[in-house]
């Protein structure tokens, strides 16, 4: 991925001109709400991806990057809204500059622009998830399982996997449906062949027997065997050159009988009492609004059951266990049982009607073709339209329709019109006038027709065979893809879950060391349940505080990013995320980021200056690796605190003779440091239920505790006869005691309310020594080597040592 060395922002969002030097390391941006912190977040995202989620994502409404990316005073000059990022690509060991303006967000100026750099930046541009805000945290933690699945899938870039799975399943389902069609085609071709051969079973012996009977009539050699290449009419062309009849009298007569049977069946059905009763029942049901959709639903579910033979939902292609899905649909249909019972007769009738209409259509279509073969040709103007109507009705009757549509369809069914019946009669009369064929001619017609039907049947079987192979292959591919993706993703989710638990336990090890979580993927959902103090597993929002939930969101995000990007997780922006973590665990969050993600550069925003100090004291951010916004104005953008430490700021106040501000800042800082030092040195402090500690409650306690620890260190060193350690502890004690005396810290313990309350009333020259004394005092709590504040170790249990980060101070507190 990438590490950002610096960013320069000009006329972008609320920022006029600002350069921040990150030096490729963690960096914090602090400032009250509304001082421009988010502008930096937006600028980073814009420079790296060409877009700003806040302006383009969900809930952005009418806001857009093009219209609202530039500073409000330069709305019509988007080319002047520019962000320049200087960065390092660790994988390539290359430096690069990326400059984008809002007018052409997708045409960044990249220097140098070698193919490998462009490819690396192109990959980064597809990762808007480098920015995590509290809004995203909620998306991961508190979302419904379905929504969470979408969010996590988007983060994991799983859209392509889902798209592929759906496409392969769709292909498999379509191939299965195609196979069923070809199977039906084979059945029809087989029935046609049986009729042509005048046999009832398609056995080789029966086919040969029937064929050889005709061949003997024509003097053709009998067929000894029936193979794929056998032609039943083999040798026929050479033996008899006479053309076949235009109309086979025998066949036409048979077709006429079939048609008459079909028409009679339709006439009787449409004229039956059941048909009339069916109409009445539909009318009655339609008058009851609560039941009007029942038939549609019932037929919908019934159709669904038929279409799920391949183990997937026919609508969304999601795989189901067959029995489970059937049971699921059966349960739905049971709810409709009462109305369905009333509709039972309607369903039966419509089902029968479908078959009848199809039979009539096939028989009429087959017979009416003789009209054009008669001499003279018999006019046939109406049949085509009638057949089209029949086919359409039959198709719709068999599909999912409402009861109202069913009523209209039934009204459209009419018996065969008299005009068509007249045409049929004319054809039949013409056929009757045809001479009976000779025995030879009949045999010849029989063999030709049988061979034709045999070819159709063979072709149908061939196509069915191909369709079967395709259905098998596509199902196999789809099944393997589903199994593979499930396996890989389950492994991934398990790893993410374990990592999430590890990270969360780290920041909550004081009270949730045994924390557990379940991240459960299932059918487009991602369940997320967490252990609540051993009482069971619940959704994160059920019992945990908002602060804990935010901690979970951060940990889940970090775990996901680590598994998505692996070693490529080199950069992330945490936009006021740390603020929402509960205050008792912020220090641990800093330690977590530093320990577990030492290779990742975090740019963090917060509106809490104490938080900012936490980042520094925990070593998450280095010296000077932060910026503080004081205020913001639309004309000038954010105003920075000088990038100097608090002592320089106090000095500036005093230079301007502003003792009041200097005193306020010193007090605020010492209050923060008092708490920080008490924590590090494990100083006993009088507990306050409202957690409102004043300066006098904390700093004197820290001071006394350090003195006590140094005394213990000297005693321990004496017991172990370690002269060097005795001298080291004594030197520290001497320095510290002098600083404490200078600050009159001992007086604070007698009357803590007096001194700091009087500061702002002092003159400049009176206050300067106070500042100097407290600066020396705070310095005396630090290691002179690494500047880390000394700390008692371990954090809990018996205090064993006084240490600093670099190890230069490492004093044993346990005597012999």
């Amino acid at each position, binding site marked *: 991925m990438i590490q950002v060395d610096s960013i320069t922002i000009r006329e972008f969002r609320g920022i006029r001109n600002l350069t921040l030097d990150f030096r490729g390391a963690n960096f914090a941006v602090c400032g009250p709400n509304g001082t421009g912190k988010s502008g930096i977040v937006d600028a980073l995202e814009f420079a790296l991806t060409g877009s700003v989620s806040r302006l383009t994502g969900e809930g952005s409404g009418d806001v857009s990057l093009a219209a609202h990316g530039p500073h409000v005073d330069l709305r019509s000059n988007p080319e002047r809204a520019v962000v320049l990022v200087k960065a390092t690509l660790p*994988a390539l060991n290359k430096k690069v500059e990326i400059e984008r303006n809002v007018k052409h967000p997708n045409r960044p100026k990249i220097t140098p622009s070698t193919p490998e750099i462009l490819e690396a930046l192109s990959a980064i541009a597809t990762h808007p998830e480098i920015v995590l805000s509290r809004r995203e945290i909620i998306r991961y933690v508190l979302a419904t399982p379905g929504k969470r699945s979408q969010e996590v899938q988007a983060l*994991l*870039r*799983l859209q*392509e*996997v889902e*798209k*592929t799975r759906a*496409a*392969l399943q*769709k*292909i498999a389902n379509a191939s299965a449906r*195609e196979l069923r069609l*070809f199977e039906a085609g084979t059945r029809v071709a087989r029935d046609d062949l049986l009729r042509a051969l005048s046999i009832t079973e398609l056995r080789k012996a029966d086919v040969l027997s029937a064929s050889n009977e005709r061949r003997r009539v024509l003097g053709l050699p009998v067929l000894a065997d029936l193979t794929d290449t056998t032609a039943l009419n083999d040798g026929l062309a050479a033996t008899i050159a006479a053309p076949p009849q235009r109309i086979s009298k025998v066949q036409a007569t048979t077709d006429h009988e079939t048609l008459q049977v079909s028409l009679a069946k339709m006439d009787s059905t449409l004229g039956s009492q059941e048909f009339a009763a069916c109409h009445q029942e539909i009318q009655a049901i339609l008058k009851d609004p609560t039941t009007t959709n029942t038939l549609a639903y019932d037929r919908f579910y019934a159709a669904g059951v038929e279409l799920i033979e391949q183990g997937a939902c026919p609508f969304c292609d999601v795989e189901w266990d067959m029995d489970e899905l059937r049971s699921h649909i059966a349960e739905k249909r049971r709810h409709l049982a009462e109305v369905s019972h009333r509709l039972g007769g309607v369903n039966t009738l419509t089902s029968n009607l479908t078959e009848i209409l199809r039979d009539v259509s096939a028989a009429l279509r087959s017979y009416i073709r003789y009209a054009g073969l008669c001499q003279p040709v018999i006019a046939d103007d109406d049949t085509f339209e009638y057949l089209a109507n029949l086919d359409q009705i039959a198709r719709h009757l068999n599909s999912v329709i409402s009861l109202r549509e069913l009523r209209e369809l039934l009204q459209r069914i009419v018996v065969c019109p008299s005009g068509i019946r007249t045409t049929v009669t004319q054809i039949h009369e013409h056929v009757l006038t045809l001479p009976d064929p000779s025995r030879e001619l009949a045999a010849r017609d029989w063999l030709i027709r049988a061979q034709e039907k045999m070819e159709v049947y063979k072709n149908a079987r061939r*196509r069915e065979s*191909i*369709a079967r192979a*395709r259905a098998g*292959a*596509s199902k*196999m*591919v789809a099944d*393997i*893809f589903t*199994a*593979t*993706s499930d*396996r*890989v*993703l389950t492994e*991934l989710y398990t790893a993410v879950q374990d990592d999430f638990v590890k990270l969360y336990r780290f920041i909550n090890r004081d009270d949730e060391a045994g924390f557990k979580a379940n991240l459960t993927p299932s059918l487009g959902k991602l369940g997320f349940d967490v252990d609540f103090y051993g009482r069971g597993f619940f959704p994160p929002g059920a019992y945990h505080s908002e602060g804990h939930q935010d901690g979970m969101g951060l940990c889940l995000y970090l775990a996901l990013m680590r*598994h*998505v*990007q*692996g*070693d*490529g997780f080199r950069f992330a922006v945490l936009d006021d995320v740390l603020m929402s973590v509960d205050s008792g665990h912020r220090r641990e969050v800093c330690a977590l980021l530093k320990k577990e993600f030492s290779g990742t550069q975090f740019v963090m925003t917060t509106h809490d200056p104490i938080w900012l100090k936490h980042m520094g004291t925990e070593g998450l951010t280095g010296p000077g690796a932060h910026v503080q916004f004081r205020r913001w104005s639309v004309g000038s953008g954010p105003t920075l605190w000088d990038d100097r430490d608090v002592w320089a700021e106090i000095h500036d106040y005093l230079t301007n003779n502003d003792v009041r501000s200097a005193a306020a800042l010193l007090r605020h800082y010492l209050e923060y440091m008092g708490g920080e030092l008490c924590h590090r040195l494990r100083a006993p402090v009088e507990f306050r239920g409202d957690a409102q500690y004043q300066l006098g409650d904390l700093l004197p306690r820290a001071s006394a505790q350090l003195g006590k620890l140094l005394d213990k260190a000297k005693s321990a060193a004496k017991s172990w006869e370690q002269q060097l350690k005795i001298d080291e502890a004594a030197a520290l004690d001497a320095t510290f005691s002098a600083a404490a005396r200078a600050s009159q810290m001992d007086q604070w313990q007698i009357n803590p309310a007096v001194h700091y309350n009087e500061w702002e009333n002092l003159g400049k020259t009176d206050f300067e020594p106070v500042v100097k004394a407290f600066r020396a005092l705070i310095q005396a709590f630090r290691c002179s080597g690494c500047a880390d504040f000394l700390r008692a170790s371990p954090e809990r249990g018996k205090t064993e040592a006084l240490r600093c980060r670099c190890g230069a101070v490492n004093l044993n507190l346990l005597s012999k």
Partner: protein
Amino acid sequence: MDLNERTVTDRVFDAFIKDLEGAGVDESVRQRLRKALLEDRKYTDPALKAAVFGDGETSL
């Protein structure tokens, strides 16, 4: 490229191609699917249908 730096999607596709081989799926099918998923990055129905059945064999 290190395994960790590859996308989850690519990890799934790679494992899929390997599993196809393990299941004895024809090499030509595997090659077409590898090309569609990992090289051309086409995940549409027609592209995958052509990959599964081969060009020119997408309909009976």
